[in-house]
């Protein structure tokens, strides 16, 4: 089954919409869902043209497609556990929060907190992602714990903060402090990064581009070939400011 949601033109297009109801499973019972625009409650049909093609008996067979201006829509795919969502344009914040299964594809850019506290499933963002891509919530000790986030473009700052499990793969560059407070999982940055892995405790980060402002508290262990990436890298252990035992590999 395909559910196509095309955003309607709004009187106040800058108002954020919160749409955690947009997950495949919810469309099993129809399209009578509630979303929020600013401080007002709306029905899905007030904000979207809704087209449903085919039927489904199981949520894994449901594909949700978002079209139009979706850059202000937050929390799409929150707690999603199966099925798929395709966003043809840009998507707002918190896409794929707490996701545990299924796939989300974003053809445009994603705003901040993409895949926050994700546990499983896959997110593919073909454009750039904002700040705090694949991270956690304020005050919480664990960020993303499982699954995979792949970004074809760049990310903003604090990418994979508190990463505790799963894989984050950035094909472009990451901003300031990628992998800060990391305690597990794997972070791959094919482009450049500034001050990677500050205060990391555990986990692995591989950077194929240039590192700016490498922190002084990483202990160089060895230089070795990383066959998976076909590169030679300097391997650091850190962050020694924090008794950390993380691994940071930087192409040399």
């Amino acid at each position: 089954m395909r559910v196509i949601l095309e955003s309607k033109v709004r009187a106040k297009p800058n108002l954020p919409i919160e749409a955690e109801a947009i997950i495949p499973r919810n469309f099993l019972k129809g399209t009578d869902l509630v979303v929020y625009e600013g401080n007002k409650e709306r029905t899905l049909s007030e904000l979207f043209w809704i087209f449903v093609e085919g039927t489904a008996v199981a949520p894994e067979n449901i594909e949700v497609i978002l079209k139009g201006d979706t850059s202000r829509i937050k929390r799409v795919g929150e707690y999603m556990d199966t099925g798929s969502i395709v966003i043809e344009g840009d998507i707002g914040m918190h896409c794929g929060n707490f996701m545990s299964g299924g796939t989300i594809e974003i053809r445009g850019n994603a705003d901040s907190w993409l895949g926050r506290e994700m546990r499983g499933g896959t997110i593919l963002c073909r454009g750039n992602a904002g700040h705090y891509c694949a991270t956690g919530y304020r005050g919480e000790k664990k960020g993303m714990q499982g699954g995979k986030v792949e970004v074809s473009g760049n990310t903003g700052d604090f990418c994979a903060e508190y990463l505790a499990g799963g894989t984050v793969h950035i094909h472009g560059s990451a901003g300031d402090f990628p992998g800060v407070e990391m305690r597990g999982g794997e972070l791959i940055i094919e482009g450049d990064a500034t001050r990677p892995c500050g205060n990391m405790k555990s986990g692995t980060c591989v950077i194929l581009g240039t590192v700016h402002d490498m922190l002084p508290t990483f202990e160089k262990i060895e230089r070795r070939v990383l066959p998976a990436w076909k590169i030679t890298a300097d391997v650091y252990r850190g962050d020694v400011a924090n008794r950390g035992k993380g691994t940071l590999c930087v192409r040399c």
Partner: protein
Amino acid sequence: MKFVLNTGRTVPQGTSVEHKGSDTYRTVASAGFLNPIDMMLLGIEDGDRIRLTTPAGHIVLTSRPAEGVVRGEVFVAIGPYANHIISSETHGTGMPDFKSQSVDVEPTGEPVKSVGELMEAIGGLRF
């Protein structure tokens, strides 16, 4: 020349902060403090006007020499002049780059605007 814009509180700014329409406030909030060597390189003297440009906009300030300011930095009291050119990007933290905005600095003959004029430039109206 490329500089980093740094902002902070000062006593003169603080004592006139509730009188933003006053000349005193205009004087203290629109002073751009530079290292004397940078001023020499820019070919300006104490009191000459400088134009600071960033992607957010531009502003004219009165230059002042300050030994304590490091080379490559321009210090401006926290307030509407500095804010006229600071980006509102917060890096997801809520806090703009009040101390690390990169700016172009050049000498200018243009006048320093009043706070009221700055507010009118962004759609306001002086009382």
